[in-house]
Structures are given as C-alpha cells and as structure tokens.
C-alpha cells in the first residue's frame, strides 16, 4: 500500500475514533465536531480536485457550498410548510428525504458551476482566483438582501431531514452518514485522479500548451473538473445545512471559501487525505485553543504559521514525504 493511501486511511480511522470516543464517553459534542470535520473534509475534497489536481485556485467555492446548503434548506422548509419549492416552469414539491435533497444540491451546484466555470476559465492564475470570488460575492450579496429566504437572517428548518428511517437527530447516526459520504467521495476521488481524465487534468495544470498540442482542449478538461468539484462541495453544503438545521448567507461568504481553502492547503494540496487532515487539525485547534484564552486566534495563527513554515506540502506532505514522480 502506498504511504499516502495509508495516511488517508489512518486519518479516517482517527476521525472515526474521535467520534466513537464521543459516543462512548457521552460527549455528543465531540461527535458533532467530528461530523463538522467530515463535512468540511468533503467540501475540501471537492475543492482539492479543482485547486490541487487542476491548479484552478477557486476562491469562490463558498458559492457551491452555499448553493448546496440553500437547496437543502429551501426544499426542506418547503416540505415542512407544505408549500411547493417552485411552481414555474414546473411545480416541484418540497421533500425531507436526504437522498432527494442531496441530489438536488448536487444538481443545483452543477447548474451554478457550469456558467461560472465557462466565464471564469477564460482567465487564469490570480485572475481566476478573483473572478471566482466575484461570482461568489454576487451570490452572497444577493442572498443577504433577497428577502424571500430570510436574507441575512437565514432559513431555519428545525429538524434534520430523514433517510432510511434513521433518527438523524441522533448525533452518532448523522455522523455515520456523513462519514460514509466522505468515504465514498474519497474513494471516487482516488479513482478519478488516477484515471485517464486525471492524467489529462494533471497535464492541464502543469502544461496546457502541451495538452493542446496533443489534441485535447484544456478548457473542456478544466470545466469538467471544476463542475465535478463544485458538485462535491455542493453536497457538502447540503450536509452542513442538515447538521445545523439552518442555512444562511454566511455559507456563501468569502470567509467560507477561504476556510475551505485553508483546510486544503493546510492538509496538503493535491493529496487525497489533505482536506481530511486539514479540516480535522483546524477544527481541533479551534476547539482546544478556544479554552486557553480569549485571544486564542493569535495562538491559532501562530500554529498555522509554524505548519506552513515547517511542513512543506501541508500535513500530509509532512507525513508522507515528497510525492514520487510515478504512481
């Protein structure tokens, strides 16, 4: 087994262990925290496909996270109010079934990502960073000032949605669901980046000129990666909405984009387990340092700095060493 795969599995085991500890130690909040880490890890895995493997540094993934969240929120609250989600061009009823909501979130993220991707991919480098930010900010301000779904106040739907007749309000059950989704997404990602498409994507990042000269349009490859990436992040958004039983524009804000990005970079860019490591470490630090002092964010900043300065390639890079040229 390759070292990186091993580390990913180890990280997953740690995450699971932490949640299990919360269950046996009757500290449900640890489970909630682990759930949050799992969800952010999913969002990060999504972003990592664009940012890490595709070299498309999107500073606007909050848009997809938020769109996924709002899709979940709107559908669920419509179902609770017995109102249709929309009546035009066709009538769509609300639902409280998680699989339905996930699908809707994924599709919504996809529909948003296609136009954003088409426009954004005309640019490159830092310009790409900023144009994705621009689109996310547009959505953010729209959500803040659009009154229909609560504006800045957000939208509550009180109870988690349901699936398979499980009691999702039980933290452990919900954790298991999110953990399962994370595992599936990771497996998919592992396959994807080693596939033919993954090879093309890697070339699109490293040398688009060469890719073109070989007869493949970098644009198509990138757009596909960007949209898949958005769909995964959208799914994470739906899960996050369910975790909190609440969505608000803050899911769309640039802080969220930045946070997901920090998870990925901290854990290791273009490393399979990177987002998992990043999300876990960050949330753990937040939790532990918060108890130390009111000014805990200073400590958090210092720890982050130390990680950047001394762990090349993020946490996973530190543990797994340099990536080999062939795999």
């Amino acid at each position, binding site marked *: 087994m390759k070292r990186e795969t091993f580390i990913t599995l180890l990280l997953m085991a740690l995450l699971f262990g932490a949640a299990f500890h919360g269950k046996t130690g009757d500290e449900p909040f640890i489970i909630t925290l682990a759930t949050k880490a799992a969800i952010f890890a999913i969002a990060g895995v999504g972003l990592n496909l664009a940012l890490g493997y595709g070299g498309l540094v999107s500073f606007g993934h909050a848009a997809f996270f938020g769109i996924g969240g709002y899709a979940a929120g709107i559908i669920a609250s419509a179902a609770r109010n017995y109102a249709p989600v929309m009546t035009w061009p066709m009538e769509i009823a609300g639902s409280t079934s998680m699989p339905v909501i996930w699908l809707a979130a994924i599709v919504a993220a996809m529909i948003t990502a296609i136009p954003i991707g088409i426009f954004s991919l005309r640019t490159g480098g*830092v310009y790409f960073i900023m144009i994705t930010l621009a689109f996310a900010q547009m959505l953010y301000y*729209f959500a803040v000032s659009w009154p229909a779904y609560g504006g800045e106040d957000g939208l509550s739907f009180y109870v988690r949605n349901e699936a398979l007749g499980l009691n999702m309000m039980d933290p452990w059950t919900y954790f298991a669901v999110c953990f399962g989704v994370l595992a599936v997404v990771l497996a998919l990602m592992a396959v994807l980046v080693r596939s033919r498409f993954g090879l093309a994507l890697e070339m699109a990042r490293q040398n688009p000129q060469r890719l073109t000269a070989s007869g493949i349009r970098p644009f198509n490859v990138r757009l596909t990666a960007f949209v898949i990436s958005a769909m995964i992040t959208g799914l994470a958004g739906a899960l996050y909405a369910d975790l909190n039983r609440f969505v608000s524009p803050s899911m769309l804000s640039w802080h969220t984009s930045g946070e997901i990005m*920090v998870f990925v970079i901290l854990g290791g860019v273009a490393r399979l387990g990177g987002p998992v490591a990043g999300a876990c470490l960050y949330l753990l630090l937040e939790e532990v340092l918060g108890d130390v002092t009111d000014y805990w964010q200073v400590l958090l900043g210092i720890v982050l*700095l130390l990680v950047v300065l001394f762990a090349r390639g993020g946490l996973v890079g530190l543990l797994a060493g340099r990536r080999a040229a062939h795999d």
Partner: protein
Amino acid sequence: MSAALVFEQLLNGLQFGVMLFVMAAGLTLVFGVMGLINLAHGSLYMLGAFACAAVAAATGSFMLGLAASLAAAAIAGVLVEVLIIRHLYARDHLDQVIATFALILVFTEGTRWAFGSFPLYLTLPDALSGSVALPGGITYPLFRLLIIGVGLGIAGGLFLLVNRTRLGMRIRAGESDREMIAALGVDIGKLYTIVFALGAALAGLAGALVGSVQAVQIGMGEPVLILAFVVIVVGGIGSITGAFIGAVLVGLTDTLGRFLLPQAFGLIMDASSATSVGSALASMLIYVLMALVLVFKPTGLFGKPA
C-alpha cells in the same frame, strides 16, 4: 435630480476611487509587482490606523500619528517579511495564502489584545476638516480633496518607482525569476524586504488617512483587502496605471450604482421595493464589474496578456 447633484456624485465616485487606490497602493506593490499574495494587507492597514489613533491621542498631533502609522506598519512589514514571507518565495503561491491568512488572525486579535475591543477615536485636525466651496455651488469636504491629492501623488510616485527606476526593474525581474536575478549579482532578498516594508508602510498610511474619516476598529481591514484585490485585478496585475484606473472605475461604479440604480428601478416599481432591489443590485455591482472586465479582458484592463 439636478445636474449639480449628478456632478457631485461623479466627484464622489472619483474621490472614492482615489481613496480605494490609496487603500490598494501598498498591495499594488506587494501583490501587483512582487507577485506575492498578501492577505495580511488589511491587517497592516488596520495597524496603521490604530498606531495613528493611539499616537494622535497621546501627543495630540495628527501629523505625529501619521508618522507613527508609517513607522509601525513598516516595522511590522519588515518583521513579517524576514520571519515568514522570505521563506515562502520559492514555494507555491498557496503557502503564501495560508501564511498571510494566519497573519490576519495574529494581527487582528493581537491588536484587540493591545488596544481593547472598542473602536478608537481618530479624527481630522481642524485645519484639515470642514468644506470648501467648489465652482458650481458645490461644497466639498476639504479632506476628500486632500485624499485625491495624496492618491495622485502616490500613483505618480509608484509609477516612476516601478517603471522608471532600476529598483523597479529588479523587483519585476525577481517576480519572474528570483534565482536568475540573484545570479546576476542583485541582492534580491534585501530588495524584497525593502519593497515589502514600503508596501506595508503605504498600507499603514492609508489606514491612518482613511481611518480618520471612517471608523478605527478591529476588523476594519477585511473589507479593504477584498476591495484592494478587486481594484488591482480590474486594472491588471503589475500595472500601476491599471490599478489607478481600476480604482477610479470601481469607485465610480459603486457610487453611481448606489445612487442611480434605486432611482432607475423607481421608474418601474413602487418606491420602497425599488430602493431595496436597487440597492441589492448596487451592492453586487463592483463584482459584476470585475466579472465583466475579466470575461472580456481576461488579464484586466492594463494587464499584459499571459
């Protein structure tokens, strides 16, 4: 809507644009020219404002405050460059993102720790406040005219520095190939420290100047950061002229959008919803502008094609 009001709003837009340029000037140097993604720019801006407010309160002199803002930010800049940024030039840009993100946390909470959680008092000395009468019957705050002057001065200075001096050439050369410029005998490390400090000092000065007409409070740097990036990207990275034009364009768009959009919607719907829809759109407007510019000119208005 009188002509005088429209003219005044144009002036406001222009002035806001120049103010944006002042806020973005330091970043233009560090990000636009050195190619370093510095998210902590806003923190240096905040630091400058707090230093100015504290010194002005202690000494009673606004001018000493301004000097303090320059000094404090420059010193912070040197420290940051030497301790952290210097080790990241050879790395991926993304490492800079996370390091400077960490710096935001340290600076924000550090400032709160040093100065407390409450906004500070910083206002203009009498000599600089008040309004002057402009032709056309408009009275206009003196300080805003002053900001326009300072902005033009900084723009000119930076333009000359970057495009007309060897220092500027070396920084730009360092941005594309640090190793090579060093192999030609240039101490690029020291140069970068100096330029980073200069960028930081400009951020600090902007914080002090703008802070004296806005609020000096924790977190004041964050919106500035995003705005500054928008300005630079619209103008085209690496171009001082671009940053200036970009700033003015963003300033005009924002001001006129806030002013005109609600009125435009007022023509087709009732007043109350027109204000709310109009201002909702207005708040997105600069991002719409940025997206449009980048869709049609993928490297900004004055950026060099990749």
